[in-house]
């Protein structure tokens, strides 16, 4: 799949933002006043900023409100609805903390649950797609959720949780890559089933329908070199998981924490880039690609 910048930014940042909201909702930490304001601002900038970024790739952002209507069937619609609900709930909760020094515990819990649900909805947009076998698997929501809560914990300064959660996320990441690499083949979809010509012999795409490119090829038939990918994977593991864990094991220091956060975000960006770039859409079969 084409690794669209807006989508990578959106999923990465909003995942972090909602992850932070989870911890804030749980009261870990439970800041008040100006500190609370700063925390919530960061969370909202990330979560809402991501949401805004996601509208960049829409053909008609002005019609975005319509996306709230189909929550019964569409994960994308659910994501819209839940994310807005989350932001509203957490706004009320945050206002309590910032302005009234009050923590409405049940509201925080509700907000945390909604935050998780938002991330789950986001991940399900990808995980539901049978057309992209690499995504169409429990590891997709697991990874999104793990990264969100781990990154959130890191931002929230919950190092106790952040450390194991990052390790878990790293583990899920590795499983996602390892199983993902085999999944396309495992699903049995091939140029033979795509064309129905399997019985006749070995099939090779000969002439494409157009000598130029088209929307489908740009959007879904993206190929990256294997070498390039494995290097990026190492980088992502190192920055996203390894380095933050290592830094957290050192005695606490604000600069180190900041470094850990930056490394983590960079690593997650790389992971997310790979999430898209490595995803093989079945339509590629028609174009002689996988």
């Amino acid at each position, binding site marked *: 799949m084409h690794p669209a910048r807006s989508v990578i930014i959106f999923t990465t940042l909003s995942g972090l933002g909602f992850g932070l909201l989870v911890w804030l909702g749980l009261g870990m930490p439970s800041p008040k006043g100006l500190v609370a304001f700063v925390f919530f601002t960061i969370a909202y900038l990330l979560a809402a900023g991501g949401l805004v970024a996601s509208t960049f790739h829409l053909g008609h952002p002005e019609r975005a409100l319509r996306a709230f*209507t189909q929550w019964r069937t569409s994960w994308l619609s659910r994501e819209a609805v839940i994310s807005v609900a989350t932001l509203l709930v957490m706004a009320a909760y945050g206002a309590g903390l910032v302005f009234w020094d009050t923590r409405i515990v049940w509201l925080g819990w509700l907000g945390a649950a909604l935050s998780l649900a938002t991330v789950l909805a986001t991940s399900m947009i990808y995980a539901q797609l049978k057309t992209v076998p690499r995504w169409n698997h429990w590891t997709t929501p697991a990874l999104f959720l793990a990264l969100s809560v781990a990154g959130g914990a890191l931002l929230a300064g919950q190092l106790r949780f952040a450390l194991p959660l990052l390790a878990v996320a790293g583990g899920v990441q590795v499983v996602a890559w390892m199983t993902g690499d085999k999944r396309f083949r495992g699903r049995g979809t091939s140029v033979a089933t795509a064309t129905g010509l399997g019985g006749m012999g070995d099939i*090779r795409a*000969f002439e494409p*329908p*157009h*000598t*130029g490119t088209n929307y489908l090829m740009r959007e879904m038939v993206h190929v990256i070199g294997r070498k390039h990918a494995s290097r990026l994977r190492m980088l992502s593991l190192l920055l996203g998981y390894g380095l933050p864990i290592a830094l957290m094991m050192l005695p606490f220091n604000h600069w180190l924490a900041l470094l850990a956060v930056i490394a983590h975000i960079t690593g997650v960006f790389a992971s997310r880039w790979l999430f898209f770039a490595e995803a093989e859409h079945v339509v590629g079969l028609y174009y002689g690609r996988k």
Partner: protein
Amino acid sequence: MASPEPVVDTSPHVSDEVRKTTCYMCACRCGINVHLKEDADGQKRVAYIEGNRDHPVNKGVLCAKGSAGIMQVNAPSRLRAPLRRVGPRGSGEFVEISWDEALKTATEWLAPLREKAPEKLAFFTGRDQSQSFTSLWAQAFGTPNYAAHGGFCSVNMAAAGIYTMGGAFWEFGQPDWDHAKLFLLFGVAEDHDSNPIKMGIGKLKKRGAKVVGINPIRTGYNAVADDWYGITPGTDGLLILSLIHCLMKAGRVDLPYLAQFTNASCIVNEDPSSPQHGLLLRDEQGKPQVVDGRTGRLAAWDAAGVEPDLGATYRHGGVTHRPVFHLMADRYLDPAYAPEAVAERTGISADRIRQLAAEIARAAFDTPLEIDRPWIDFRGKTHDKMIGRPVAMHAMRGISAHSNGFQTARALHTLQILIGAVETPGGMRFKPPYPKPSTAHPKPHCKVTPGHPLNGPHLGYPQGPEDLCLSDTGGPARIDKAFSWENPLSAHGLMHMVISNAHAGDPYRIDTLFLYMANMSWNSSMNTSGTMKMLTDTDPVSGDYVIPRIIYSDAYSSEMVAYADLILPDTTYLERHDCISLLDRPICEADAAADAIRWPVIEPDRDVRGFQSVLCDLGGRLGLPGFVAEDGSAKYADYADYITNHIRRPGIGPLAGWRKDKDGKDQSGRGTANPDQLRRYIDNGGFWSEHVPDGAAYYKPFNRAYQDWAVKLGFYDSPQPYIFQLYSEPLRRFQMAGQGKGTHLPPDHLAERLASTMDPLPIWYPPFEDSSVDTRDFPIHALTQRPMAMYHSWGSQNAWLRQIHGMNPLYVSSRIWNDKGFSDGDWARVTSAHGEITVPAVEMAALNDHTVWTWNAIGKRRGAWALDPAAPEATKGFLLNHLIHELLPPKGDGMRWTNSDPITGQAAWFDLRVRIERCDPPAASQPAHAPIQSPVPAAPKSLRWKVGK
């Protein structure tokens, strides 16, 4: 709970008006419905084009090019006004001028030539369909140097068909799609009969008939063929003669048909001492003789009641004279034609050759087709049924664009005739006004009288050496050397030699080259880079261009435009009158005579004029007989006027529909001009057609009912029955000249070639390139094919079509691919005896092992066609033409033969031999020529073409 579905307007307004005319995106000439809608500015614009269901050619269907016509009519490459060259030739620098200036200039250039030396004008036209008109103009001008494009296209096919049986494929004939059980397709990628072939294949498939493709490349029609024979290029003749061998050996030939309807039963003069040796025995009236089975005596072939005997010989003066059929047995039963003997050369195993022969035998003779329809032949014999041999064949450039193409095409027709599958149910059927044997066509004319018309039509069918177009010294009279000893039967001229000969001043220099719709500095020339040099070359002494003046008519900014001095911009096909005439290359079907028109369904928005109308105007200005009225003014206001009012022979005009009888009533075929004729065509959907009567549907050359109907419609003035010429006397006459017999003798250096190639019975010889280059050095055959969704060079300016074919890789057989160590993304350096190109390569398995190929004419010169210089057509596309020379490499005696068939002069595009090696991708395909300046403004970036709101 589902919300209600949106309401969709399922009956939107389709268009304001439908105008029916004829497509021009290729020479198939389908009927189209042009839907017009009013635009925001109140102008009627083309909104959509679809096929006309009532039209005899396409019956509603339309190909990709036809449907994309809307993008042709709005192409930014359309020329906008007449142009005068201001930069050097080839630069593309022009100024726009008025029509008045343009026509004055042309007249000033041409008038003195006509007065002094009309042959100094060479007027050649491309693939247009107004040859009966353009040739009339050239004839009136008085130059012998006129032809259309057929010489580089497919004259082998056309001439072999006419000489053998009075018609060939496409415009002359078609398979009997409704009855054939076996269909053999030789060397066709697309052809002119584009939609009918597809419709026909669809019909065959529906009926479960078998389709066989004989072609080195398996794409398109050959991909859907049930059986594919990936033949080695240039060897079809050998394969066909081997099939003939097998069928004769098994007695699977149609004896009654051969005896009655072919010259197999005619007696050949076998007396070596006779001056007529090798010609048919004739009576005092000059009629070929057969032995009448009733009497055992000689009789004229067409005498009433005669029953020609295929077996009987005639002994006279101590010599036994045998019928043609015996000579054929002698020749084709020779073991040299056994499958085993030809397998290696053709690349087809002996078993598979036998299999094909057996399938032909089975389809033709096991289950003959009988239609209960009595008919009477020209000898007066009544046949109670029409018996068919349901084996249909079709062939085109794959066999004809070789230097052995004429004889190969003759071999193919011989095969068809041997099994009785021409003009019989299930076989091949002629389209009126064909069949028409070579003797019913004019002979070529070349006599120049300054200030006067030529002594007759330029092109025709010579019957012997005395009909050649030679100068007083015996050299070629025409600039293209057509109808000379080099290519005696060049019925369509040799357009591909005009520039080269004019540049060499051989046989003489010309002054003005006048071209019409042929991209001669690019895809329609061999040796493209060389041609560009010839067009720009200057005389070292005078500094003038060697070809002093070039006038060109194109509708678009093609590569050729840059090489002209004066441009006469044409309209597009929806903006002008045209006439697809029975006098020319009509649109008839086997069951109907038909002709058609184009008419301005939209008005041009530029200062352009229909070229034919411009010729009418020029004819008037030059005072050409036939083009001036009695008062000295132009006789025809425009082409529409000509179409309506021109009279070719009494009662015969360009269009056959809605003429007038003497009472002023409508009449088809013959009649006086009808001022309302074009209106009647328009009301009828742009065409006229008249059904062939049922009893006349088959056996047309021999069938009285057909002959009478043809006379009624004005195809001939009296019945002209004839029999098929398996044995060709015109060829024999040239062969004799080559053998030094007779009074008209060729120059020595051509004698041997004439003697060996002009065989009166079909033969096969290797393509000339095989013997003039070292085939170990150049082991690979290189071919081109037409893409179905592109028309030569003009498809590339079409925003929709160019997305389908924006570049053309070289397809390399898996065998060569692996041998040479290619892998995906590699490019290939391709070298011929003449040149080198570097181009992108792609592997292909369904391809003859020793062959590479590419799509034709996709490659473009930078700067042409209003395309961006970075267009893939220019950076990755390429022409194979750079590798093909118009002359073969020098022979021992230093002479260079043209790269053409020795009989007809047909350009031998597909003889090309190359070698290839892999290489890394260069920046762009090579050779890359400098960009030309565009004479039209830059194209828009994007399109969203919707006419209605």
